[in-house]
């Protein structure tokens, strides 16, 4: 989950990796990502051949299968433009996971180069573009779930920087914020009891802080936590950081 020293982008052309979860479930998160990046003056390209980052097979231990997908990612996201991902998990796959599974492969340099120009969205806004305040308005008392794949990266601080600067938004702290939500990809179905208990515990801690919104940087964590809350008949409102930033612009008449 390393966050290698990166060069700030020189141009404003970026490539969007929408993620498979946005492709399948969270269309609005991908859309918000485009709108946020365009607001920042970026030209957003969407390589149409994109599929998934390869993480499911990587985590399952099927590295041969995962490498096949990662090689497809490298081909699809050719060039040198930054690759922006509205997910700390997929970003970590490309900057940390892929180099791990390509350690003994001849095309490791290409994998490393892709990882070097891959950014999680909030990390890119703050640490790539140098934008540290967010305009518009968003009335909320929100809890922010720092995804585990954002450990040791610039993402969590970037999200907090942006939200603290946002008019109307208040961040509440909750206990054991460093603990995992329990999703873990296939873990959620191969260890259903533990996964669900972890999710319940996370929700218990979040609810104790009485937020009106749960903000995340990964739709996977939000899908898991939101899904548990729904199943329990006590839904919790969840939003991806891209949606919050986009809606703030809308509320401020900037979009």
């Amino acid at each position, binding site marked *: *989950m390393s966050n290698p020293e990166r060069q700030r982008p020189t141009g404003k052309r970026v490539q969007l990796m929408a993620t*498979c*979860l*946005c*492709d*399948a*479930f*969270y*269309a609005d998160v*991908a*859309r918000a990502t*485009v709108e946020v990046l365009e607001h920042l003056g970026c030209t957003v390209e*969407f390589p*149409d051949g994109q*599929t*998934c980052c*390869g993480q*499911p*097979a*990587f*985590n*399952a*231990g*099927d*590295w041969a*299968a995962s490498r*096949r*997908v990662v090689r497809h990612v490298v081909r699809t996201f050719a060039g040198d433009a930054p690759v922006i991902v509205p997910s700390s998990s997929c970003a970590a796959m490309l900057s940390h996971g892929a180099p791990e*599974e390509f350690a003994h492969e001849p095309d490791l340099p290409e994998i490393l180069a892709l990882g070097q120009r891959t950014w999680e969205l909030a990390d890119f806004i703050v640490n790539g573009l140098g934008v540290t305040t967010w305009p518009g308005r968003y009335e909320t008392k929100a809890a922010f779930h720092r995804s*585990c794949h954002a*450990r*040791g990266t610039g993402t969590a601080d970037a999200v907090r920087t942006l939200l603290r600067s946002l008019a109307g938004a208040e961040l509440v702290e909750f206990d*054991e914020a*460093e*603990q*995992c939500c*329990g999703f*873990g*990809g*296939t*873990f*959620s*179905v*191969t*260890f*259903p*009891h*533990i*996964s*669900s*208990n*972890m*999710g319940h*515990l996370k929700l218990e801690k979040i609810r104790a802080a009485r937020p009106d919104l749960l903000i995340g940087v990964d739709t996977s964590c939000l*899908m898991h936590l*939101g*899904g*548990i809350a*729904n*199943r329990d008949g006590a839904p919790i409102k969840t939003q991806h950081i891209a949606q919050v930033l986009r809606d703030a612009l809308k509320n401020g008449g900037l979009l």
Partner: protein
Amino acid sequence: MKPLSIDQFAAQLRPETQRSVYESTKSTHEKRTKVLFDHFPDPNRLRELAGQIKQHVIENLDTYLPAVEAKLQAHGAKVHWAATAESANQTVLSILRARGATKLVKAKTMVSEEIGLGPFLEKHGIESLETDLGEFIVQIDHDHPSHIVRPIIHKSRREIAVSFEKNGLGAYNDEPAVITRRAREFLRQKYLQADVGLTGANFVVAETGRLVLVTNEGNSRFSLAAPKCHIALVGIEKILPRDRDLALFLNLLARSATAQQLTVYTEFISGPKAPTQPDGPEEMHVIFVDAGRTEVLASECREILRCIRCGACMNVCPVYRQASGHAYRAVYPGPVGAVLSPLLAGNRFPELADLPKASTLCGACSEVCPVNIPIPDLLLRLRNKNKLAHGPSSGTPPMGAWSVLASQPTAWKTSLAFGKAVGLVPYVPRAFKPSVLRAWDDHRTLPEWRGGEFRRWLAARKR
């Protein structure tokens, strides 16, 4: 009977046991973090440095081990090498036999659990008694430790009081002070009667041949002071290069393990009693135990040999907190155990191949590890090793077919369009066995399918 999976074990754990494991690990973890960050400006830098030192050690064992052997011999200790668990046990037994010893007191050592020394000695008519309070309770209960630092983290004081009563250690009383006093009174006699004291070692310093032991109960000191013979069982990875390295490692170990600045007792032992010294063991044996460690060293997971057995990874691990230690079916549980136990199992690796999967790969363990072991990376390497060796195992989704789909854009987009029916998106368990779908659905709803919607929005904008 097939053993329970880790998830099944967690599911049948009594709620009060789960809660108390959770509460006490959480509390220790939080104190550990506070004490480290209160006392040092950048504890993470210390963890990195300690990791580098231990990595250096395990990569240079071929020079450090002979060096430490020479130092120990120069101090009058006898050095033994045990390639396997069996040979370690036999070495202990032959030392005992040579002295005509029948009674042994034992300080807490995980390597003795690993090699099954207690049951082995019992089988050969040796009375082997645990003197660490937690291990003593484990022993009288015929149980196993469930945590490497706190062996009875899974037991309540009521259960302990019942065991004491059953074992003739006084009428039922669940006051911790009373339990401790009774154990102390019982053990004190045993120290005086013992022929041999057996300990582990937390560190062995190569430049001086010094064994370093840390405890909080003073039981290792008693085990060394009373009997005439001292045996130390030491994993070959326990080396530190220099005495000065102890400053770093003792500071990190106590804080990481128990949130203490320093344990109550820290012992430095260089050899048997010198002629000028009034007491201490007249004979000292150090048994260096391999028992699979050189295989680990040769593997892609050698970083796990840096481990100094502090237990911080299990204290922070959300899976350990839910499942408790016995779920792992191995001497070393938790994140470190999920790596180390299958590796030490050698050709029994497949029996423990589920351990590396018992993780969301959240990385909390590597964030607290005092020797900075990249545990999630190692878990992933083991998952891959298992896949290469044994093919897909049950419960693992079919990634081969998925990877073909995910590298063919046309097929991918088609599956997005028909996803609701075909269900080929990896995190959606519909493509898997129905039981896997149930595993999601029992606990969570699925969000509404919006396959391809974003792409359609993007295309519409362009027009």
